[in-house]
């Protein structure tokens, strides 16, 4: 009996599943703010923003085989530029968001050019160093970044002053970006990236320009991280060096890992789990970094394939056991 149900779904059926599931999920998310209290709505907004960041990390880690530790910094640079643009330079909010995303994309392109020559641990090291340099500059360049005090603004203008409206706008943005990233990794270009992940030398001998592909992938992924950062600027109205610090990149990566690297939408689940945990932990203790570190250690030892993947494997195993009885 199990053979019949385990048969791969026909393409038509899979499409049907998507056609029903995606709008249903979107509808559920859109109704959410009208049943939740205001505070929880803002937490949900935060989850959506970080889900985009985690997905942007997953685009590189899951599909190009490059684990980045500087995406928090790229995200934060966008946040900094948006706040600087709207409070100091006096640009309209939307215009400063565009500039912020542009700045993040350019930064990602530069970092990409430097980093794609390496892979594996070296890539991790290098992106870590690049991210820390961004943090150092934001901390010390007081004249522009405000140093430790950061920059404060009031970006929630017009209808977006309403938490529910802001949530819906972020939801729309996150949905469009998720679709964009999904298209990107399933495009022929994305398939090439997966080929590079599996074997760089094979792709090179097939005639693909591997470094160029990786630079483009890094830039695109940085663009999405920058989008998340720009939304975060409007959401948070404040930026300080803690937005670009290492723990931001680490939290984003942890979300992607918890959701399962290479699953893209798993990152949404990961973002939900990590931020929900952060909220729960902060009720009892200030030691969030300790919990974050411990989570990382435990997941690396027990569930490197992600909590979602681990749960699925455990379920499958128990189902198998039941089937055998």
């Amino acid at each position, binding site marked *: 009996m199990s053979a019949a149900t385990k048969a791969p779904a026909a393409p038509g059926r899979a499409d049907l599943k998507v056609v029903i599931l995606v709008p249903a999920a979107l509808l559920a998310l859109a109704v959410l703010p009208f049943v939740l209290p205001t505070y929880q709505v803002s937490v949900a907004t935060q989850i959506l923003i970080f889900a985009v960041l985690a997905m942007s990390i997953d685009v590189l880690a899951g599909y190009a085989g490059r684990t980045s530790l500087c995406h928090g910094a790229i995200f934060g640079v966008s946040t900094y530029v948006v706040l600087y643009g709207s409070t100091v330079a006096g640009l309209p909010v939307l215009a400063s968001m565009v500039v912020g995303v542009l700045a993040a994309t350019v930064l990602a392109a530069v970092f990409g050019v430097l980093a794609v020559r390496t892979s*594996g641990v*070296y890539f991790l090291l290098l992106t870590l*160093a690049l991210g*820390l*340099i961004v943090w150092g*500059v934001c901390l010390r360049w007081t004249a522009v970044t405000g140093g430790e005090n950061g920059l404060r603004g009031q970006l929630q203008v017009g209808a977006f002053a309403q938490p529910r409206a802001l949530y819906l706008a972020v939801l729309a943005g996150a949905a469009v970006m998720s679709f964009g990233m999904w298209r990107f990794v399933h495009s022929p270009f994305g398939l090439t990236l997966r080929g590079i992940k599996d074997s760089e030398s094979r792709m090179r001998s097939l005639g693909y320009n591997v470094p160029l592909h990786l630079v483009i992938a890094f830039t695109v992924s940085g663009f999405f991280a920058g989008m998340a950062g720009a939304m975060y600027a409007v959401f948070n109205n404040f930026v300080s060096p803690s937005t670009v610090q290492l723990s931001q990149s680490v939290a984003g990566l942890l979300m992607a890992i918890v959701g399962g690297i290479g699953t893209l939408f798993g990152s949404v689940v990961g973002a939900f789990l990590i931020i929900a945990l952060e909220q729960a932990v902060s009720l009892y203790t200030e030691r969030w970094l300790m919990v*974050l570190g411990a989570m*990382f*250690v435990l997941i690396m030892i027990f569930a490197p394939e992600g909590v979602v993947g681990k749960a699925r494997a455990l379920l499958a195993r128990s189902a198998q056991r039941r089937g055998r009885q």
Partner: protein
Amino acid sequence: MSLFQLLNGLTFAALLFVVASGFTLIFGLLRIVNLAHGALYLFGGYVGYTVGTHTGSFALAAVAAMASVALIGLILDQGLLRFVRGFELRQVLLTLGVAFMLNDLALVIWGGDTFTVPVPSFLQGAIVQFGVFYPKFRLFVLLVGVLVFVGLWLLLNRTRLGALIRAGVDDAEMVEASGINIRRVFLLTFMLGSALSGLGGLLGGAFLTLYPSADSEILVFSLAVVIIGGRGSLEGAAIGSLFIGLFNTFGQVWFPELAYFVIFGPMALLLAFRPLGLFGRAA
């Protein structure tokens, strides 16, 4: 370029070398990028501060700093890293988690204040030479840096343990096949590398002070040193430290707010031509 600034750059380079040599040793032999290295530095510094202020002995503080951090290294290697052996990326991310935990633990124990490790009386004050008024302790750090370099060079090139370490870098399996317990060599190297970061924490704590984010700062410098010098190379670490130490010092003088950015220049240039660093070899 005054003599004063040159000395500042050299003494900072010496501190960097003490910290980064431990980092590159572990990276080269065990293939472990220990991102908890910065946190170990901070821990070593704090322990040295506590012991130093209570006993008044700098030597005792140095021993305590190195021993306590070597012990943390032992626990890290035997208690946690053993579960992820052979998975490079998982090892790195695990040490990153440990770095967060250690940093937070340090915050719980010592709080967020800035501390300065007490300097022994014979190293206090300054000497005047060639018209330059220079703190004795920083010259002492320079001396320690040179001594650590000579010591490590002799250890690696003139002792049996060093021969085993070098052989392990080249081909760990072959060393094991010839009847050597390479795991013990690995563990010793890990503890030695950790102890060096503890020593660095003590020295750095005396002239750069200790505060909760000092670990990230020293980590980024160590990373830059190893990226420039290449994995596992003592000479690379020395040259990388000199590079970064001098660049950073002059960067701070010329562009005080963008000093961090000045490290980025040489690093980017080098990566364009030698992605594995000056002395790096492909694994």
